[in-house]
């Protein structure tokens, strides 16, 4: 569903990605791990075209993303839930939920209603507090809102940037738990996480980045609990 | 410093080219007018310039033997520019005579330069009284004026209003001209043993005078003297205040802009200082020719007529002297005679002690009647 070859990107004068390959098919969950500053966020920003790669190619849904606008990709199913969630504090929970869906013009109103209902079931707290301004939700609630907001855009590829940031472990497990069910209904998921152990418990494949390069790659089973992963973080 | 010399050299070159020797004697006449900035100034400047250009057209038609060329500069109603342009005309363009400008402040700033340089200045359409008085005792004085004079028109207004009205109010702008006029009105009335009932001021750029006019009404003012150069503003406020005083004021009230903005009936009966009676003789032809020539841009008959006469006098003097000799032209201007003036300017306007085109006896009061300004009976 989405693949990239030899991605290189720069922020200002410093090189943040040094030749990264990514491959995620429908129904798969890929975890991208690594300590902070390893280039995980830059990878997602390059895939969603917020950051322009100066080398390498990204292919989404069979078409190259070169030169396509961020909002065009987002409307066509390449949904990137950014780091820090970016919930619009002044808008109500419902408005936050609907703002993405409303940009996808090919969605009919009742399709949106159906998706909304599905998201309310997925995260009931959103239904209870639908009219409350987004800014007043707790960290965990905001993360759920951010994920649901992405799902409301009927994504084909869902990219999550560190959902665990600042959340209690059981809340993170609740959120990561939904990934499996999403993958089963045909979604390709890229989960960027620093919390390696948690992520490895909820994905099929994983890759570990360090200083903009991929140092480890393989099926999740082989990486779970491996010392190589710990060393890539802390040595 | 090389870039500076290059710029100046190119300017000097331009001037030399302009005065390339044509066989006929060639004299340049400098004109400084307020051609940009607030409309109150620009209306005066452009109307005066219209008069000057028509006069040049007529001069060339009559085939004057000296070829005259105008060098026109805009002083943006800014005294700093006026001083700089005066120097430029005298020293760089080397013109022997200059006509200008609108703002009295600018004229006061320029006059010493002309007097010291010995180059005659025909001031206009500035109105403040002391423009010629400042140097009249110099022998010779290089400062002339062909425009309305505040003192005369205020004198005429005071005589007329003191005889008819008890409660008189005054509204003036806070510009130099406004404040000077206000003092002269108060002096004039004191001379008649009368006192102004209400005195109000307002900024030049203000949008609305209802506050000030309401005070007039509450004080029961019968006659409002309007010395604010947005001449239409007092009229606009009247309808709302259900107040219909007689309004009188300086020659500015004769601008066609005023009825255009507040309507013919609102200005009916408004009295103003005047130096042009379009109902009679040459003036009427002039009025028609100007209307034909400039259409709606012709908005101030009296200012245009004085511009015409100022230019007519200067051209006649220059033609008599025949060469760019400032002192000779000054004398020619002072002794000029046989002027067929459009405005109330007499045939022999100047004398050694009188450098005013329009003297006290020439100023009369005009009144709006049926959309036209006529002489008050």
């Amino acid at each position: 569903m989405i693949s990239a070859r030899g991605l290189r990107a720069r922020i200002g004068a410093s090189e943040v990605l040094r030749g990264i390959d990514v491959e995620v098919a429908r129904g798969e969950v890929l975890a991208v791990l690594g300590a902070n500053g390893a280039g995980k966020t830059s990878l997602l920003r390059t895939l969603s075209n917020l950051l322009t790669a100066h080398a390498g190619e990204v292919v989404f849904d069979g078409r190259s993303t070169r030169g396509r606008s961020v909002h065009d990709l987002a409307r066509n199913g390449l949904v990137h839930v950014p780091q820090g969630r970016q919930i619009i504090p002044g808008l109500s929970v419902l408005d936050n939920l609907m703002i993405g869906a409303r940009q996808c013009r090919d969605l009919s109103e009742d399709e949106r209603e159906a998706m909304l209902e599905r998201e309310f079931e997925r995260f009931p707290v959103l239904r209870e507090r639908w009219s409350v301004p987004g800014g007043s939700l707790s960290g965990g609630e905001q993360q759920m809102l951010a994920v649901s907001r992405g799902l409301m855009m009927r994504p084909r590829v869902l990219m999550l940037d560190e959902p665990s940031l600042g959340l209690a472990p059981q809340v993170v497990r609740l959120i990561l738990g939904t990934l499996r069910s999403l993958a089963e209904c045909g979604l390709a998921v890229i989960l960027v996480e620093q919390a390696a152990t948690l992520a490895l418990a909820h994905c099929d494949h994983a890759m570990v980045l360090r200083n903009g390069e991929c140092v480890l790659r393989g099926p999740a089973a082989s990486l779970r609990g491996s010392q190589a992963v710990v060393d890539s973080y802390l040595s | 410093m090389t870039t500076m010399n290059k710029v100046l050299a190119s300017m000097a070159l331009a001037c030399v080219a302009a005065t390339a020797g044509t066989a006929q004697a060639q004299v340049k006449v400098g004109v400084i007018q307020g051609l940009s900035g607030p409309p109150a100034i620009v209306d005066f400047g452009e109307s005066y310039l219209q008069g000057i250009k028509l006069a040049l057209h007529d001069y060339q038609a009559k085939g004057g033997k000296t070829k005259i060329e105008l060098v026109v500069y805009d002083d943006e109603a800014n005294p700093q520019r006026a001083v700089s342009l005066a120097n430029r005309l005298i020293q760089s363009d080397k013109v022997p005579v200059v006509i200008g400008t609108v703002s009295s402040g600018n004229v006061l700033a320029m006059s010493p330069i002309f007097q010291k340089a010995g180059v005659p200045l025909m001031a206009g359409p500035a109105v403040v009284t002391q423009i010629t008085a400042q140097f009249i005792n110099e022998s010779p004085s290089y400062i002339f004026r062909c425009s309305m004079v505040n003192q005369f028109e205020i004198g005429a207004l005071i005589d007329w209003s003191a005889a008819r009205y008890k409660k008189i109010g005054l509204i003036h702008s806070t510009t130099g001209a406004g404040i000077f006029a206000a003092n002269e009105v108060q002096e004039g009335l004191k001379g008649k043993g009368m006192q102004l009932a209400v005195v109000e001021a307002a900024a030049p750029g203000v949008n609305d005078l209802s506050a000030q006019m309401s005070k007039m009404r509450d004080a029961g003012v019968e006659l409002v003297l309007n010395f604010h150069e947005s001449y239409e503003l007092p009229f606009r406020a009247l309808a709302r205040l259900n107040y219909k005083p007689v309004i009188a004021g300086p020659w500015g009230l004769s601008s066609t802009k005023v009825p255009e903005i507040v309507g013919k009936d609102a200005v009916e009966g408004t009295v103003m200082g005047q130096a042009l009676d379009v109902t009679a003789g040459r003036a009427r032809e002039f009025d028609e020719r100007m209307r034909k020539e400039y259409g709606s841009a012709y908005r101030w008959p009296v200012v245009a007529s004085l511009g015409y006469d100022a230019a007519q006098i200067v051209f006649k003097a220059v033609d008599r002297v025949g060469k760019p000799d400032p002192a000779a032209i000054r004398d020619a201007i002072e002794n000029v005679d046989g002027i067929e003036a459009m405005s109330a300017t007499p045939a022999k306007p100047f004398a050694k002690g009188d450098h005013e085109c329009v003297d006290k006896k020439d100023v009369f009061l005009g009144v709006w009647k049926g959309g036209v300004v006529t002489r008050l009976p």
Partner: protein
Amino acid sequence: MESTIVPQLMITGLALGAVYALVATGFYITHLTVDKVNFGQGDFVMVAAFLMLSTRSAAIPVMLAIPLVMAGMLLLGLILERVAIRPLDGRRSSNVGAFAWILTTAGVAFIVQNIVELVYGKSSQYSPPLFSSDRNALVHVFGMRLVVEELLVIATAMLVAALFYLFMFRSRWGKNIRAVAYNPDAAALLGIDTRMIKVAVFLVASLLAALAGVLIGPLVTVQPHMGLILTIKALVVAAVGGLSSPIGILAGGLLFGIAEAGSNYVDSTFGDLYPLVAAMLLVALKPSGLFGERAADVR
């Protein structure tokens, strides 16, 4: 002392205050989204007033004239964004620093003012009332003699402030604008075309200038130099009202209008000075303005 004079002056003050509020709302919307404002907004109002003049002299009915003027102003807003704002994107530390947009928008204002002078001449023009053929059409309200247009402009300003509040906090577009204002990257990821929004806010500002221009015509004499003083007063009103809510700006505008009318009544020589000095003191003491709170959600 006829009792109705003071309230009547207040209405006149409110009317001009309403115009300042309309112009200041134009500052609000662009400042909120791109941290820049059009320093020639007052000149845009002047252009709209002159355009209205052309439609009236071409005997186009008012109801058709207003949309035409607005269309013209939208075009002007488009040109302004393209010429004076977009080229400066991403050039944070150019030599003129982050304020180059003040000078580029002023540059456009100079050009626009010159074009108006060339087309309409430099002197002041009469702009006929919108809804009455008679020049001094009056309305008697509670014994006060008011010009229809004054009530109209106050009502319009209130309507616009209300509509603006609904637009910003209820409509789809309003929410998109607030998303872009909060974080342009996050907004793009939600499928919002941030470039179009940044252009749209300048078009909205031009529409507001058009509305102000159409309404101010009958109240004052229209002339090419009226723009600058409008910009200064609207900037002060925006600062006093607090650049964070349209309602605050409306209140700031009306307050400033009344203060101006009152101070003109009390001491006409310095009438226009007192409100300006008072406003400057207020901004120095409370930089976020009277009604603006440090709105966390907006920035």
